[in-house]
């Protein structure tokens, strides 16, 4: 895809100011020699990502951030959040919120399901903004380099859960807990309120999904998400890097207990968010 960084920056400048471009240039990037990191991220595309997401973030979903001081300024970190809404708007909102509320600015690297890198155009654009495919090796490489990862431990079952099960967390997978212990990363639980109501679905079809090369295709009631208000709650970091040694990542009980703690923390944040908010659209 002949999408040059210069074009990305030109497009970004149509809607964002110089300060935003400058912020994107200051993100931590391990330049592999041609302005991109090994996984394909480039600052100009980070700026473009902000330009594209900002209108939805500020005007449509009117995101409010709570507790972003809990995001460490540096070092290997996993943001573990609930996943919902049938389309990954929650990921986009979280990505931009972290970029705007960290100093120096950090790009949280979304760890996407395996099918995402195989989507033409989308896979490439997401990679330019920091996304990597969800293999253990990719996550290991990023954590060993001290990067910030965005993981949704519920996986696909979370994002396609029926409306009737909103804010009821699917069982958290344990991979993020094992990665954090093995590579000495902190886990910051994140509760995302709003996404679970944005796009109620009639049903989700695995058969149609397979035709498109994705695990499941949700069939929403409305073609676009509702203008729900997003609240992002960042909890206290879970310091598995201090509590455990890397070899304990092979202890299934410890890993399961950490995953359970993360799930419980996210659940608490969601309860708090639901109690504090002034309605779905307020």
């Amino acid at each position, binding site marked *: *895809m*002949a*999408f*040059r*960084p*210069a074009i990305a920056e030109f497009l970004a400048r149509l809607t964002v100011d110089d300060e935003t471009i400058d912020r994107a240039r200051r993100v931590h990037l391990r330049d*592999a*020699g*041609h*302005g*991109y990191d*090994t*996984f*394909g991220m480039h600052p100009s595309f980070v700026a473009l990502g902000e330009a594209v997401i900002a209108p939805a973030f500020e005007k449509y979903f009117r995101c409010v951030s709570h507790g972003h001081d809990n995001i460490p300024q540096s070092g290997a970190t996993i943001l573990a959040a609930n996943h919902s809404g049938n389309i990954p708007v929650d990921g986009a909102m979280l990505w931009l919120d972290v970029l705007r509320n960290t100093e120096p600015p950090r790009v949280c690297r979304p760890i996407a399901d*395996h*099918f995402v*890198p*195989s*989507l*033409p*155009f989308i*896979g*490439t654009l997401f*990679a330019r903004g920091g996304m*990597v*495919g*969800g*293999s*253990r*090796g*990719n996550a*290991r*490489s990023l954590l060993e380099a001290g990067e910030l990862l965005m993981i949704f431990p519920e996986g696909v079952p979370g994002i396609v859960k029926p409306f009737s099960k909103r804010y009821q967390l699917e069982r958290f997978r344990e991979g993020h807990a094992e990665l954090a212990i093995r590579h000495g990363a902190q886990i910051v639980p994140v509760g995302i309120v709003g996404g679970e109501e944005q796009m109620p679905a009639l049903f989700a079809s695995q058969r149609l999904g397979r035709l498109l090369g994705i695990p499941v295709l949700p069939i929403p009631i409305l073609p676009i998400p509702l203008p729900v208000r997003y609240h992002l709650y960042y909890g206290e970091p879970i310091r598995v890097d201090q509590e455990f040694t890397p070899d304990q990542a092979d202890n299934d009980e410890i890993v399961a207990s950490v995953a359970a703690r993360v799930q419980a923390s996210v659940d608490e944040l969601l309860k708090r968010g639901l109690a504090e908010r002034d309605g779905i659209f307020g």
Partner: protein
Amino acid sequence: MRLLLDDSRIGHVVAVTGHPPEVFSVKEPKRLTVFQAQLHKSRQVHKLLFGVVQEHKVQVVVHTAMHLDASDEGDRVHAFNVQALRNLLTLCERHPTIKRFVLRSASAVYQVQRDLPILIGEEHPLNMAGHAPQWVRDRVEADLTACVRMGIAPLEIAVLRMAEALAPGTGSQMFDFLQGPVCFHPGGFDPMVNLLSISDTVHALSCAIHSDAQGVFNVPGADTLPLTTCIRRWGRLGIPIPDNLLGPLYRIRRRLAGHDFRYGMNRRWLIYSGVLEGSRAQEVLGFVPSHPIEWPVLCE
């Protein structure tokens, strides 16, 4: 060859070629002996090793010979790619002076797909697909033939899995891909590629020659960049085309223009990112890629 001869730690080089010695371009009578041998003919190899190689007390064998043309297949090609290596290893194991064997392998032995890591370590899965073309299967078999002898044979064996060297005469599919004025590539995809210069290729071989470490080592290049940037910096026009049209398009190109690039064999490398991770070569052999490719187009 010139760079090896410039290394003062190397006393004498025996260069083995399939062509008459007179056509060999490098001349250095005191420190270079050029020997003609067909490597798939065991008698000739025996004569080489127990003749001039023993005479010059050669201690290290560097094997880089592989059939370069991806379109050629069959027993003859397999004999050159794999059986010659097997025979060479057997002879080296009982040779009185040879202590070390360095095999130049290739990143093409690795599997690239969407659910595998982008950063390829030495433990990354190899391309064992039955439908892989012989060009790939032979390289995997040669690589594994050397690997299984490690620790068994009285020979130090180092296998260097090198990134594609963007240079002629190296059998590089990427170099061939970039030869046409127009490079058709899968629309919607722009993977990261890692490329090696000839200078770094020689530097890596030199590090392996002078080391006593045994094992498999990835040798990445100094250039990691998106495919479309690579095309532009090589001075070519990149045109995105739907994936399913590229196979026939490149078959036509092979027939009309004689280029060797095979899309089917390289498809996954043009869709999914795959970059060699070279920390083991750095720690053990002391190799760090430091000679970027001299791109015809200087900047974006």
